[in-house]
């Protein structure tokens, strides 16, 4: 374990930014998001969740993956240059889990090579939570806000300093690279344990229980409940775009004369066009089917494929859905409650 005094943070950023791209949670005037760091930016390591989840670093909202020109002897393709090594600092445990859930999808065969390369080249520094807020419910999905298994480095905020624990080779080498700024922290291990433990205790339970919910949903595809709460849904993309585990995309070509490029961009199952077929038929004709898909995907389809619910309890949909059709409301409506209210 090593620690870093908070007053040395700017030095740390400069040091890291010299070697690689560095993504930090930056306050953009009210909303905090992971941006490539530049001198003078207002880094906010106290903000709980960034508005846009850090999935956007690996699974970018718009990503060109093919470039071509038409020549006499056919199409000529150009290589897409990968962005190179990066450090992503300040990922909360729920969001880390979100990235791991995306790994299941993008790294299964056929592997998504651009995603994979970015994952391999990026060192993730996770940050344990100290002050979960009322819309957090990570513990419902067995995520510990005081731990982040799978992160390269784990950071814990002790007030005046950050304590780092390396959890992988990438993490070790990052610590080595910044060794000049660090002090030994073996003596702080108790304090660190305590902060991490408190985080877990502070997460509200909301009286929710998802034990057996997946199995229950197996037979609920035609349940009348889907005909009720969807009605208030606006059909916007807020919940899906902000969700750290949503990963649907569209592929489009952009052609200019002899040149063109093919890009991938986020898409949302909440949009009518998402399932519209070339024939004009739409298998999810109304918002009812779309809302059902979003929640069945999170709570039934994905778990069937990957043995884990596809919600990490980050609370983004809770905070941002304009009509509160969020995961907590829906789990409650589907009967996933044991006791009480929030």
């Amino acid at each position, binding site marked *: 374990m090593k620690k870093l005094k908070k007053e040395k943070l700017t030095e740390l950023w400069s040091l890291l930014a010299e070697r690689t791209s560095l993504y930090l949670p930056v306050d953009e005037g009210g909303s905090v998001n992971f941006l490539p760091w530049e001198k003078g930016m207002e880094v906010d390591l106290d903000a709980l969740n960034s508005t846009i989840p850090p999935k956007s670093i690996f699974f970018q909202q718009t990503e*060109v993956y093919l470039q071509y020109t038409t020549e006499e002897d056919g199409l000529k393709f150009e290589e897409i240059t990968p962005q190179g090594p990066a450090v992503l600092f300040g990922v909360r445990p729920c969001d880390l889990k979100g990235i791991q859930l995306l790994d299941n999808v993008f790294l299964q065969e056929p592997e998504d090579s651009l995603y994979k390369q970015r994952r391999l080249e990026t060192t993730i520094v996770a940050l344990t939570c100290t002050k979960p807020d009322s819309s957090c419910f990570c513990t419902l999905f067995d995520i510990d806000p005081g731990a982040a298994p799978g992160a390269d480095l784990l950071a814990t905020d002790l007030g005046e300093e950050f304590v780092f624990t390396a959890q992988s080779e990438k993490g070790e080498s990052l610590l080595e690279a910044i060794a000049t700024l660090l002090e030994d922290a073996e003596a702080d291990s108790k304090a660190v344990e305590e902060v991490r433990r408190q985080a877990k205790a502070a997460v509200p339970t909301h009286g929710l229980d998802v034990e057996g919910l997946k199995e229950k949903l197996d037979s609920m595809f035609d349940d009348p409940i889907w005909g009720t709460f969807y009605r208030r849904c606006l059909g916007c993309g807020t919940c899906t775009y902000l969700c750290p585990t949503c990963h649907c995309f569209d592929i489009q070509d*952009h052609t*200019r004369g002899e040149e063109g*490029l093919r890009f991938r961009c986020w898409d949302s199952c909440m949009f009518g066009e998402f399932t519209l077929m070339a024939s004009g038929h739409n298998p999810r004709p109304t918002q009812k089917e779309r809302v059902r898909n979003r929640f069945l995907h999170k709570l039934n389809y994905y778990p069937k494929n990957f043995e884990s619910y596809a919600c990490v309890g980050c609370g983004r949909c809770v905070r941002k859905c304009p009509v509160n059709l969020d995961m907590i409301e829906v789990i409650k409506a589907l009967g996933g409650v044991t006791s009480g209210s929030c």
Partner: protein
Amino acid sequence: MSVTEKSLQEKQAWEPLIVAFCCNWCSYAGGDLAGTSRMPYPANIRVIRVPCSSRVNPMMVLRAFQRGADGVLVAGCHPGDCHYTSGNYYTRRRMSVFRRLLEYTGIEPERFQVTWISGSEGAKFAQVMNRVTEEVRALGPNRKLRDAR
């Protein structure tokens, strides 16, 4: 070649591209007259013939900018002369507010212009095209609305 040299060279080589939406009944005819009367106007202008100036909607204007236009002009019949009686009166309102909206988001008003040219105003057609080309040339290439991909 240094960056400044290169950009200087680019600037010298650059010619403004102007998309002019001309209504079929007046402004396009005005262009024809300019042509048959051998009045010169710059080759920077690309005329798109539309049935009426009120056929032009702001999406067409923006699309022209996205795809590389440095300036856009909408030209219609003088108020009172619309082939469809009132089309250009709507154009006047619509394009007036749209032009101000563009200005408000930082687009110089010279980049988007509206004018009335009748079928007998060949000279005016040539003169407007010259003026717009020079005004846009002075502003330089459109970088603000362009789809740079």
